[in-house]
């Protein structure tokens, strides 16, 4: 038929940018990177094939080990921290108060503002002697406040804290959208049955919100492995790699050391871990997510 041929040609033309983009900026790089991970290649030299050499090197390297631990630690702070806070804020804002719009706007603000700019403001707040935070702590009577960004113990939690601050408004908005689909008569029923607010939260709100929570959890998990801008502008991975996570380590290897093959192998390990976590989540999904 003439017209359906016309439709098909139009469709092909419409999808041409997507197909080219998918090929050039997704599929080819994904394959190329995988191939690169089997080569030893400093960008200005000739590549040498080393088989699993890069992978073996990564698994025996103390630095890489430290970076893996840092990444796990970062996710362990970021994922529960941001979701917990977002859930509390969303529930508090889901009350029909007229001022909710103001608070929602305020909490969402960090998410849409320039990351480098606000991270630099945090860097100034964390400053050991003249920073707002330590002066505030001093005013509260804490007189051995840490040096935050210069302290190996606190640098990574500081990066996680800024990341939570930046993203929590986004997760809150997603959870609010989920909350608004809950039928208010269910709360009435629970109240009539004598359920206290805390019981209503755990017995009505949380079960009915599990679909949104699952989605937010996947998002938070993916994001927690990819922090780059905040690390770059806050600590540059220091002191002594204390706040270097996997994504940042890939960047450093590829574009500071120019060890392209090693960096590609690292990025594949990162992708593998991420995929594993996501699949695990989907596997356990039916255990706790209630599909309406």
């Amino acid at each position, binding site marked *: 038929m003439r017209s359906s041929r016309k439709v098909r040609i139009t469709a092909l033309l419409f999808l041409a*940018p997507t197909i080219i983009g998918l090929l050039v900026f997704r599929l080819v790089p994904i394959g190329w990177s995988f191939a690169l991970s089997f080569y030893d290649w400093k960008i200005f030299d000739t590549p040498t094939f080393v088989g699993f050499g890069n992978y073996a090197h990564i698994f025996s390297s103390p630095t890489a080990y430290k970076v893996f631990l840092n990444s796990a630690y970062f996710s362990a702070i970021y994922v529960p921290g941001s979701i917990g806070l977002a859930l509390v804020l969303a529930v508090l804002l889901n009350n029909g108060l007229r001022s909710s719009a103001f608070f929602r706007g305020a909490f969402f603000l960090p998410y849409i503002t320039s990351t480098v700019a606000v991270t630099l*403001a945090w860097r100034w707040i964390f400053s050991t002697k003249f920073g707002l935070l330590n002066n505030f702590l001093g005013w509260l009577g804490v007189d051995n406040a840490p040096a935050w960004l210069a302290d190996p113990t606190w640098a990574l939690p500081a990066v996680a804290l800024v990341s939570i601050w930046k993203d929590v408004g986004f997760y809150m908005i997603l959870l609010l959208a989920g909350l608004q689909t809950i039928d208010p008569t269910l709360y009435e029923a629970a109240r009539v049955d004598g359920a206290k607010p805390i019981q209503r939260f755990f017995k009505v709100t949380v079960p009915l919100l599990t679909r949104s929570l699952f989605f937010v959890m996947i998002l938070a998990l993916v994001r927690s492995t990819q922090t780059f801008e905040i690390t770059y502008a806050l600590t540059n991975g220091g002191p002594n790699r204390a706040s270097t996570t996997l994504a940042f380590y890939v960047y450093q290897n590829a574009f500071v050391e120019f060890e392209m093959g090693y960096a590609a192998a690292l990025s594949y390990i990162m992708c593998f871990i991420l995929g594993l976590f996501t699949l695990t989540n989907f596997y356990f999904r039916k255990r706790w997510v209630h599909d309406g």
Partner: protein
Amino acid sequence: MTANLHPNRGNARVTLIVLYAVLLIYAVVTLMPFIWMLITSFKEPRDVFKLPPSFVPKLLFTDHPFENYVEIWTQRDFVIYFRNSAFVSFMAAVGQVFATSLGGYAFARLDLPGKNWLFALVLVTAFVPVEVTIIPEFLIMRGLGWVDTFLPLIVPSFLVGAFGTFMLREYFASLPRDYGDAAYVDGATPFQIFWKVYLPLAQPALVAVFVIAFINNWDELLRPLLFLNSNELKTVPLGLMSFVSQYEASWTLLMAGSVISTLPLIIIYMLTQKYVLQGFVGGGVKG
């Protein structure tokens, strides 16, 4: 609402007060970096290292209140960085609207064998971390001789965009089919149906795609860091970072620069909040 319906009025009032207190405290925590950024940008350099820290934006009470802004804008090349960021973000946002409106429409409404596979591929590959693809992307751009031009920051936006494609596919699919059928009976070509009938109807979603792309590109640090070397090509985030390494302690200027780089996003977001929130939530929750 919950509070007012409570049988015990006194209790309800306490609940309400606690609720407001918690919200207010977190609002202060959330906004503090912005407030502190703003105050610092209106201080004199020597005031920055005063203990305890002062909350007075002293310059506002002089005859040269915008001194820090004037200095960073004119003498520290911020006007160049700002112009570059505006240009790159605008072009990339136009590119995203172009690529994803065509793609989203085709996925939603045009028949092509294998298009569902293609769509799945677009979504799945979007979950591959940027760390995996960035090294070959860098090698490709270097091979094309595009390093130290704006092309690596703009051209990809004219080709791919999983988020926008997904969002616009949903949007086009939600519009009634009858309009297109009527136009078809009147002899309109598939392109005319897209251009004259459906594209104007998708305006809210197109605004959302544009604004979200603009914000993301304005915010981007990794690619400008890799692809731009010359000072006259730097974007605002790069300019801010190079500024940190040169004048570590010039917090007054640095914070003025941060305000300048944050303000456009806040203004754009406020003007288009309705569309953008729908975009984030719609694109998010269903994804």
